[in-house]
């Protein structure tokens, strides 16, 4: 972080550190130990997902590496040839659960973050347009938002998957369609307040082009609530992707995400082989809870109403 803020200037008299907005933000965020802990956990999860091919004991998607004879082994047991210890057991195809979870995390995070980013772009643009254009444009966009938000996420997602069919790309599309409205509503609300501020008026008096006013002046000031919504929405997207994959509508069976790993363990649950569903669920839970805790605290820090 110190790369983006000016380092403290060493002076003879011990001057107080220069307070930049970013530094204030960081110190306020650090006030909650829980949020910092959650952030560290989340970063660790991201690192695990990125470096999964380097650190996982096995490539769970390479069918040649899987030995069906090792199927449904208990946690801690050794593979048939003794080369790997399956710390979290194996699933029905002899896939090491630990490796499966590491690779599954990648899909879950990519789908969750990817859809959240695209939805944020679409939603923020439309919300900004609604706020800036006003009038009929505003009415049409906000009616659409109302309509979208009046239906539960799972229903919209099911509808889209029923039309488009199964598949990762279709899940991403469904998530974007489900999420954009949250961003649009948030950005419009903030933008409506911000555009009446003096700095916008000043920019208009300088006859700056509208595009410049929107992107360089209005948008940066709408960022804080957008970031909060994005954090929460990433967690929601990951949970929804897992749910859809569990229902068999998401990712293909050869490259399981966390949701599908859990679904695979469903039928073995009844015979007491809990680990196939249990551990991917724990991984999913830790991911979602850590994002939610960070988002929860971000909301408190970025909320001007709670400023001391």
């Amino acid at each position, binding site marked *: 972080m110190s790369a983006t803020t000016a380092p403290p200037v060493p002076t003879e008299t011990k001057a107080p550190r220069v307070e930049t907005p970013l530094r204030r933000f960081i110190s306020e965020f650090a006030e909650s130990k829980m949020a910092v802990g959650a952030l560290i956990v989340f970063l660790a999860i991201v690192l695990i997902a990125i470096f999964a091919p380097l650190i996982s004991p096995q490539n769970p998607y390479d069918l040649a590496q899987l030995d069906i004879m090792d199927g449904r082994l208990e946690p801690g047991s050794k593979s048939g040839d003794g080369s790997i210890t399956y710390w979290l057991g194996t699933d029905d195809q002899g896939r090491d659960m630990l490796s499966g979870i590491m690779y599954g995390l990648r899909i879950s995070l990519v789908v969750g973050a990817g859809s959240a980013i695209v939805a944020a772009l679409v939603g923020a643009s439309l919300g900004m347009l609604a706020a800036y254009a006003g009038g009929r444009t505003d009415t049409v966009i906000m009616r659409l938002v109302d309509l979208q938000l009046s239906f539960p996420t799972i229903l919209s997602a099911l509808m*889209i998957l*029923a039309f488009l069919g199964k598949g990762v790309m279709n899940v991403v599309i469904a998530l974007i369609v489900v999420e954009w409205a949250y961003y649009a509503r948030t950005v419009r609300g903030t933008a409506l307040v911000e555009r009446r501020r003096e700095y916008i008026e000043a920019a208009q008096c300088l006859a700056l082009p509208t595009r410049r006013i929107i992107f360089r002046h209005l948008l940066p000031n709408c960022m804080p609530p957008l970031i909060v919504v994005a954090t929460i929405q990433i967690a929601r997207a990951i949970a929804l992707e897992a749910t859809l994959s569990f*229902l068999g509508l998401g990712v293909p069976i050869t490259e399981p995400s966390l*949701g599908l790993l*859990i679904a695979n363990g469903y039928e073995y649950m009844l015979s007491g082989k*809990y680990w196939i*569903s249990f551990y991917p669920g724990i991984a999913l839970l830790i991911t979602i809870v850590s994002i939610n805790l960070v988002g929860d605290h971000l909301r408190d820090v970025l909320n001007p109403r709670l400023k001391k």
Partner: protein
Amino acid sequence: MSVYLLRRLIQAALVMLAMSVIVFIGVYAIGDPVEILISPDADQAERARAIAALGLDKPLWEQYFSFLGNALRGDLGRSFVFNEPALQLIAQRAPATLELAFGATFLAVLVGLPLGLYAGLRPNGVGAKTIMAGSILGFSLPTFWVGLMLIMVFAVQLGWLPSTGRGETVEVLGMRWSFLTWNGLTHMAMPALNLALFKISLVIRLTRAGVRETMLMDYVKFARAKGLAPKRIIGVHVFKNILIPVVTVVGLELGSTIAFSVVTESVFAWPGMGKLIIDSINVLDRPVIVAYLMSIVFMFIVINLIVDLLYSVLDPRVRLESK
């Protein structure tokens, strides 16, 4: 009031119409309608007959109007799998879903209200902190995974409750209900709790926030100054006022509870509408998909309409503002 009612009704009808266009476009225009609406097992002659019968050779707008006309007569096609009218299939499965959704809502209020009240009255206590942490967990836990864990603990390890299915049912009013038999209730316990988890957290948070706000109100201070017993202040004055938002939200959430029962029903093999739609998507039984989407959208619009109307009765400002 009647003007408001009329306006709201017209709005609802328009939304329903818009949704019918979306569903129509989704099923008839995006995919290949021949593939979608005619069973893949059909032979050539059957296909040709079906294309003519469905009017798939006509222009799109004409097809839409015939789809709309049939829908208004309650005809949304026949299921390929069950060979029954799709709408009838949905209607048969509806009681199972409804009793699950109502059971979950009931549980949410029964558990969430007292916990939220406690957390709101002693916001800094260990108990309250535990409850609030638990509610964050309730928001974050993936429903389907909790369902699996419930099965693992209560059905497999402890063997207290049956893992799947609906159990014995009793026929009342021409529909089969399982909450009226003991066996059915034991089958319902886990799915209902599973579906309720999210709502419990919601009710806890709403109640807690409501209590904390209400306790600072002048009328509560006045009641205290008057020397009323704390039990009476909380039981009558505070409780009444926090109930309005809680009831509103729980009512509004009923629709989403029904929609989310898709997940719970799949986990517990509960034979409701949700399980039907997932099975139908998996075997591409499109008439059932269309019927499910149209009927659930209809239900949503009706619920939203009722909530809006109740609101305008409870709070005259809503009515006046719209004039």
